[in-house]
C-alpha cells in the first residue's frame, strides 16, 4: 500500500499551451517506489525495466 499524491492544476492561471502540456503529461512514478528496485534504462537497446532481487 502506498500514499500517492494527486495534483490539481488551476487551469484558469495557465495559458492554453500550458494546459495542453499538462493534459498530455502522464502520472509520475517517484523514488518512493523506484528506490525498491534497480532501474535499467537503455534507449539504445529499447529497454526499460525495474528489477528487484
Amino acid at each position, binding site marked *: 500500500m502506498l500514499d500517492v499524491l494527486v495534483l490539481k*492544476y488551476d487551469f484558469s492561471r495557465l495559458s492554453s499551451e500550458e494546459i*495542453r502540456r499538462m493534459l498530455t503529461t502522464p*502520472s509520475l512514478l517517484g523514488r518512493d517506489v523506484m528506490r525498491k528496485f534497480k532501474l535499467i534504462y537503455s534507449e539504445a537497446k529499447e*529497454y526499460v525495466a525495474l528489477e528487484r532481487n
Partner: protein
Amino acid sequence: MVIALSEVSALFEEHERNSRWFEENYERLVEKYDGMFIAIYKQEIVAFDEDPGKLREKILAKGLSPMTVMIEYASKKPLEFIMIIRGFIDRSFSPPAPAVKAFISIEKLKVKGYIKFLLDTGASATAILDRDRELLGLRIDELEKAPTRIGGVGGLVDTYIARDAEIISKT
C-alpha cells in the same frame, strides 16, 4: 505529439480490453508463445519475438503505432528470484522518456484503472496528474489535502493525498 483527451481515453479503454483478453487467454498464449514478447492489438496477436526491439520493428512494419499495441511477455515459468517490471521508452516525448504501465487501485475510493507512469527519479513521491486524475475519476473532495503544495508549471499546484493505493505492474 499532441494527443486529444478523447484519444487518450479510447487508448486507455483499448489497453484494458487487451489486458482482459490476455488474462482470459493466458494459458493458451503461454503454450504457444512461451518465452516470447507478444504484441496484442484489438484482442489479437499481431506480432511476436524474443527480442523486444525486433518486436517493435515488426509492429511498425505492420503500420501500427506502438502506443496502440499492448506488449506482454508469455512465460510458462514464473520468475521466481528476480522480479522484473517491464517498462518502455515513450517516444511521444522529446527526448524519449522511460515509462511503465500499471494498474492503480484505491479500494476505499472505489478507483481502479490502467495508467502510464513516467519513471521520474526527480520526483520524491509518486503523483497522479490531471489527465489521469480525470480518467480515473478521482474526486478532489474525497481526498485529504496535503500539508504542503508542490511546484509545477505556472507555480504552486494544489496537492492532495490518496491513501492506501495499490500499484500493480506485470512482471
